[in-house]
């Protein structure tokens, strides 16, 4: 028996409606928010492409990890999980497109480092290493490499992992899984630095890559649960039962707690040490109306799973687990908005280093050149002190904090952010969900749903917890 999914026209129609709503959202964002080279429009595309691509590659990671770890129970739902990588063929090129459009100053997402790269003569000392890392060719090439590798492995894994029948194919699948895990671990960390952390190039956090990984995990496992339950409701996957959903629920619970753990580690350590270079990231977000969405995302992504799906019964109840999954998918979208939206959408009436967000990079450079004269005194003093006098560290720290504080007020009183979470975000998110699901069902319909020849098929069939 080779059961296959039929991608019928009714479902397609519904998904096209979702995509239509997304298109309306994009048009609205473009028209209503022309500020900063339509940054609201571009940041939404970045958030959604990044989030859904992450979900896709996490699906591949999840099946690969089970292949290496002898996870036999997954066989019945493996096709569902790995088919989520269908979106990678849309998302990865979109990320690459965002990178390429940076060249023509079409959007301003990366302006903060871009103008520095283009005009090294105006380079503050603390940005010298960034000039190497964000060399535009090198940066774009890296993103192209991730995109190509992800698409390549999505092809290989979706094709190969459904056809494991004997000792030989089993061994090869393990080899592929091992290679993918290494590729995933490296590319996932790098892409989070390249595309998200770099939006504010002054701020850095060593666990940022792992934090993004946990977010993908929560989104991907939620989608896996919802899609499996949906397919069951349509009469597919008859052998999948509450035990499989339970296991996915356990992983969802685990990843939600893991995400919170990383959130807390990052926040607490920066709050506790109270170094201005670190805390400005939080001040900007918590001080500009983002605190609501920060707490909303914590409530949905931590408190909700903690209270609701810790119980065995809740993970085995399709309605409860579906509700939690939907909420978590939304919760992590909000969290990515928190990470991305602030910087590119802020319009500052202040001056100096942080003043250029509002402008495209040419204008920014011009303004920067003018303003560096004005701010050069304190800034230059700080930087020279830093290089010349290693001995004078405490004083340098003080000078640096004074410098940051002096500029900090721009974000508070005079900066106006056009970032927010409103109708356009919701519509664009719905649209991307439509594309994601379309690519998923399209991928799903190409292969049999379950490989009954798999050596672990019977284990998965009799899975009981």
């Amino acid at each position: 028996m080779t059961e296959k999914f039929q991608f019928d026209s009714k479902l397609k129609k519904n998904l096209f409606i979702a995509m239509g709503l997304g298109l309306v959202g994009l048009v609205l964002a473009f028209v209503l928010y022309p500020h900063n080279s339509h940054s609201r429009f571009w940041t939404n595309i970045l958030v959604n492409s990044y989030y859904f691509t992450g979900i896709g590659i996490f699906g591949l990671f999840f099946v690969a990890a089970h292949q290496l770890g002898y996870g036999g129970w997954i066989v019945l739902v493996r096709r569902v999980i790995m088919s989520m990588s269908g979106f990678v063929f849309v998302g990865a090129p979109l990320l690459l497109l965002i990178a390429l459009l940076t060249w023509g100053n079409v959007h301003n997402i990366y302006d903060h480092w871009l103008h520095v790269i283009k005009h090294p003569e105006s380079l503050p000392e603390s940005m010298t290493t960034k000039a190497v890392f964000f060399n535009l060719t090198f940066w774009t090439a890296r993103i192209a490499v991730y995109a190509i590798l992800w698409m390549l492995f999505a092809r290989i894994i979706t094709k190969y992992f459904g056809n494991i029948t004997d000792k030989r194919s089993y061994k090869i699948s393990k080899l592929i899984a091992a290679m993918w895990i290494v590729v995933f671990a490296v590319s996932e960390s790098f892409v989070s630095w390249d595309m998200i952390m770099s939006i504010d190039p002054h701020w850095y956090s060593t666990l940022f890559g792992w934090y993004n990984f946990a977010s993908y995990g929560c989104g991907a496992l939620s989608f896996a649960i919802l899609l499996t339950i949906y397919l069951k409701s349509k009469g597919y996957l008859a052998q999948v039962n509450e035990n499989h959903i339970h296991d996915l629920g356990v992983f969802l619970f685990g990843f939600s707690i893991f995400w919170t753990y990383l959130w807390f580690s990052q926040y607490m350590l920066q709050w506790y040490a109270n170094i201005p270079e670190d805390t400005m990231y939080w001040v900007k977000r918590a001080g500009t109306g983002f605190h609501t969405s920060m707490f909303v995302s914590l409530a949905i992504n931590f408190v909700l799973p903690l209270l609701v799906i810790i119980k065995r019964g809740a993970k085995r109840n399709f309605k409860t687990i579906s509700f939690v999954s939907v909420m978590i998918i939304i919760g992590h979208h909000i969290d990515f908005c928190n990470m991305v939206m602030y910087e590119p959408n802020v319009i500052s009436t202040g001056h100096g280093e942080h003043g250029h967000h509002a402008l495209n990079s040419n204008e920014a450079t011009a303004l920067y050149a003018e303003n560096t004269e004005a701010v050069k005194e304190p800034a230059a003093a700080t930087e020279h002190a830093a290089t010349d006098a290693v001995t004078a560290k405490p004083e340098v720290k003080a000078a640096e904090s004074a410098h940051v504080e002096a500029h900090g007020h721009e974000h508070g009183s005079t900066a106006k952010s056009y970032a927010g979470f409103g109708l356009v975000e919701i519509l664009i998110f719905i649209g991307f969900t439509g594309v994601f699901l379309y690519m998923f069902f399209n991928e799903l319909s190409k292969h049999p749903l379950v490989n009954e020849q798999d050596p672990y098929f019977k284990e998965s069939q009799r899975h009981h917890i």
Partner: protein
Amino acid sequence: MHAYESDYREPLIGPSVKSYTQITDELVRPTEGVPPLSWWILFSIMGMGTLFFLFCLGWTIWFGIGTWGLNKTVNWAWDITNFVWWIGIGHAGTLISAILLLFRQRFRTGINRAAEAMTIFAVICAGVFPLLHTGRQWLDFFIFPYPNTRGPLWVNFNSPLLWDVFAISTYFTVSLLFWYSGLMPDFATIRDRSKSKTRKFIYNIASFGWQGTAKQWQRFESLSLVLAGLATPLVLSVHTIVSFDFATSVIPGWHTTIFPPYFVAGAIFSGFAMVETLMLIVRKLFKLEDYITVNHIESMNKIIVLTGSIVGIAYITELFIAWYSGYLYEQHAFYNRALGKYWWAYAIMMSCNVITPQAYWFKKVRRNLLVTFVLSIFVNIGMWFERFVIIVTSLADDFLPSSWAYFSPTWVDIGIYVGSMCLFMTLFLLFARTFPVIAIAEVKSIFRTSSAVAKAERAKEAGSSSGGYVGSYQVGILDKDAKN
């Protein structure tokens, strides 16, 4: 009814084990009769080392912390390094008991008991160091927050060091409960076999009068699950808080957000390495090759290559971010770590933790016991140096170059560290002599699904050409048996 298991899974109980009785016999035997000569030799050496350990503790308490090699910038060195190292080792036990239980990994049954015991002993060794480094050990009870007459002398709840006190004491308590509750049915088994009355009496008390009724088993299983649920967050919290000791500061090289998850990964890494070191010795000493199979070793080696690589990614991330940050002091701290006066410590750390474990990508290496033994010791060394590198190199060059110093340990430093290892081994040898080192009841629970013999019987029923990964080999066991 037993669960189904795929033919592609290798057996977890060796081919010579045929029955439940045999399992009981072979696993209880080390606690009965006179231990082998090798045990006595090891025990005497370790016992003497423990005495020297106590001597060094006494020396420190009598003459003070000044007998250590601390200097004006390195005011925290081997004491905290040893502490973190031991706490890290103490992680694998509860990880194997709790997390592998939740992940339903059957290979845990062969190694969980010894790993849990190791946890308890390692935490005991770890606890010595913070208590000792307070300087005035007779005031150590100040760490407990209770209403007192000392006026403003009250614990500092803002300090991660105090959080450590809570985290570690909770961890120790739960690990002890977990370990002990698992031992109860096995103590009863020993009691039921013993001939001497005294022995019967002692093991009966130790087993809390366990009878093995259905009700007792039911409650036993609920207790295991509750404790597993409690222990899992504890495994994470303990080393997270240990990492906070450093990461909440503003010292370049310490203040980095990746510390919590990376310390946890490192702890699991070193814990598994120590389990391997011990299990390879125990396996040989008590002839337990059928219960701690090459398959177990291979699974542990996989965890080692995984956690070793996670640690490797963390090292590289730290280096990268230090460079990326553009922050001069951060850059200096890491440059100094890798190429400064402690370059040799950094080189040992990198090669033992990141480079050599990569050999485990190859199946042949994972299944080679000698290589495994050597590499497990490398990991133990590497993980000690990791803590040394983090702690000492970050402190040695402080903000005032005129005070920069180089740390050299004194004989007291070395004596306490080496002595703590002897204490650990002494406790472990005593444990191996009086307690069942392998969880008898748990091994029995997988006998019908995962033993070589059960697999062979199933393969025979299905016809030997069932296409199983090890199918033909399994039936081979039965044939050989028939000939004998």
